């Protein structure tokens, strides 16, 4: 796509260069940005087709599709950045339906003046996450907005996957008696962002848990446990996700506060900022609703996987016409774990 002989092309200045409006204009500058920055890093046979859309082989099964916009601030945070977050987040949305994620599409909205070095770092991170997950970015789009009309970079990713007939995970399948399992310690992503944003120097750095969960989910399926629903508790945290499932299924839930896995650093940071880890976003955790008889087997399968080592049984489902999610507190009392009211932390993912 590059014009002329190599000697006539002035390469992108990835050290000091910045995004300008021509990079989104559809002309030569945009072609160069795509070639030298995006395609070189994300490169795969589908992307190299160079057409307006990717032509893809489809394994048998039903198609699963999801899309997610990422506007996290700051763009770089301990444990990750907007690039790997955009890849892992969409893979997880596809995977929690039990699907095998296959392909990703990525749309970038860049702000004029954004350093190309930062953009390269973000795309490198996307490529790393996509490679590690085995889910290529097969098509994409780039737009540039004027200075002040954006905040550096926003990334929208769309993922597709396939799921075989028969075994559907769905938020409306929780039944009284089922058990609730979380795949690990909660609240790390949100608190990593918060600590970075507020420049709070906690003694121990809190690192985002961003990770692609389809491997863990495959291991969970292989255990043969009767899984009713899976969901990744991102914005609004565990509390909000469980309320969604309770409402969808028309049931109530009872959690045990003492069973909730929370890293001490996260617990301390939440205490300090007056936040509740149950409402803080995760980017590499999932909640599973499972038949009571299979809970132990599922827990064992999860703990055998690197992303599920600290999986824990945190509560159970029961009949409740009000669909309350409640919790027995560590003190021994009872309280509601309500929907998140208002916005706890804006632009968390």
């Amino acid at each position, binding site marked *: 796509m590059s014009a002329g002989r190599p000697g006539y092309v002035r390469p992108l200045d990835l050290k000091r260069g910045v995004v300008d409006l021509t990079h989104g204009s559809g002309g030569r500058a945009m072609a160069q940005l795509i070639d030298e920055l995006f395609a070189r890093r994300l490169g795969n046979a589908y992307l190299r087709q160079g057409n307006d859309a990717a032509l893809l082989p489809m394994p048998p099964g039903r198609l699963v599709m999801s899309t997610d916009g990422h506007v996290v601030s700051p763009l770089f945070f301990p444990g990750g950045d907007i690039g790997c977050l955009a890849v892992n987040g969409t893979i997880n949305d596809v995977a929690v339906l039990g699907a095998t994620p296959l392909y990703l599409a990525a749309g970038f909205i860049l702000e004029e003046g954004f350093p190309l070095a930062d953009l390269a770092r973000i795309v490198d991170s996307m490529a790393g996450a996509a490679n590690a997950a085995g889910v290529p970015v097969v098509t994409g789009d780039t737009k540039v907005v004027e200075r002040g009309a954006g905040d550096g970079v926003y990334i929208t990713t769309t993922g597709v996957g396939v799921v075989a007939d028969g075994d559907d995970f769905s938020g409306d399948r929780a039944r009284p008696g089922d058990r609730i399992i979380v795949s690990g310690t909660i609240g790390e992503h949100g608190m990593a962002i918060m600590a970075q944003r507020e420049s709070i120097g906690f003694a121990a750095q809190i690192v985002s848990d961003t990770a692609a969960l389809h491997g863990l989910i495959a291991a969970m399926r292989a255990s043969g446990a009767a899984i009713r629903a899976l969901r990744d508790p991102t914005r609004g945290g565990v509390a909000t996700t469980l309320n969604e499932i309770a409402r969808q299924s028309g049931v109530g839930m009872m959690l045990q506060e003492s069973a909730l896995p929370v890293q001490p650093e996260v617990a301390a940071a939440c205490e300090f900022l007056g936040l509740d880890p149950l409402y803080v976003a995760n980017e590499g955790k999932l909640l599973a609703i499972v038949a009571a008889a299979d809970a132990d087997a599922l827990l064992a399968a999860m703990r055998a996987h690197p992303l599920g080592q600290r999986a824990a049984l945190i509560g159970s489902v029961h009949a409740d016409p009000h669909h*309350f999610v409640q919790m027995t*507190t560590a003190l021994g009392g*009872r*309280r*509601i774990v309500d929907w998140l009211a208002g916005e706890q932390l804006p632009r968390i993912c």
Partner: protein
Amino acid sequence: MKFIDEFRDGKLASGLAAAIRQAARDDRDYHFMEFCGGHTHAIARYGVSDLLPRRVRLIHGPGCPVCVLPIGRIDMAIRLASESGVTLCSYGDPLRVPASGGLSLLKAKAALSRKSGAGGEIRMLYSGADALALAQQQPARQVVFFAIGFETTTPPTALLIKQAQALGLKNFSVLCCHVLTPSAIASILESPEVRRWGTVRLDGFIGPAHVSTIIGTRPYEFFAGEYRKPVVIAGFEPLDVMQAILMLIKQVNAGQALVENEFSRAVTRDGNRKAQQLVCEVFELRRSFAWRGLGELPYSALKIRREFADFDAERRFAVAYQAVDDHPACECGAVLRGVKRPQECRIFGSVCTPENPVGSCMVSSEGACAAHYSFGRFADAVVAP
């Protein structure tokens, strides 16, 4: 978490609960008011009431600074930004309190940011010190800090004003809405429901934790002596609250009315003298101040002394308080006086929710209505058999 989990320990709680059950007599009820929103929050969040026998009843008090701010005070803050064109800096919670004309600071903030070229703006911050820093960074803008709170937050505001004076800042001032705990307690005790009609029974107070680190326990001795009501100063952790309840029950059983200090790890009889001096230096008593729910209370709030008039936003921008009636269906006033429980308000949970608060008690997480809605409303649900 070290030094925190110990105060939320389930084993200790069940031991204390047993002691409370044993101490509470079968032939009478106990009605205790927890003054502070911090206590209200802890009681709801940890489910303390579930561990208490039915004959021990907790009544929520008015000690939530956001809840007791009358509409007219929020209006003043909005007018400072929209009419006087200042940068008004506020903590997060007051932003959502409903004001006149369907506004709130949050809605006014959005309206101001849409109006390009409009002078005023409203910002949320975590500390008054951030407002002072903003004034230093932007010398061309008038920055006003919306100072609310009881005695705990008053010394930091005094310090800000002193710092602003030392720096010679001409663009920093404070909208002072600091209020005084003892006045609110006196108002509750003098209310007809408690004193004359006896419709609100009060057998004692769980006294403020953080406020008392500043003012000490001495100011409560008047209530114990004059009104014969026991007061136990308690920390904000759930075990603190339970211990205080046990101490109150024992006093009531013995016919005593003393000021006791459960929060001895932080509170002394005299309090923080240095902070008190600082407050005296910068502030003086207001002759009268309007509280939501409690009405106009004499000498119940602070204003900035004349020596620091340059830093008093009320003087600098000539904004005056205008009384505004609460929403006719809102029972925040009765809730703040302990006359009604949140769930006894007709609009609780239907019209008035944390997402769309009608009254101030539904706004802050320390408000009685918000605490009950967010943590305790399962207890009101009638579950079909």
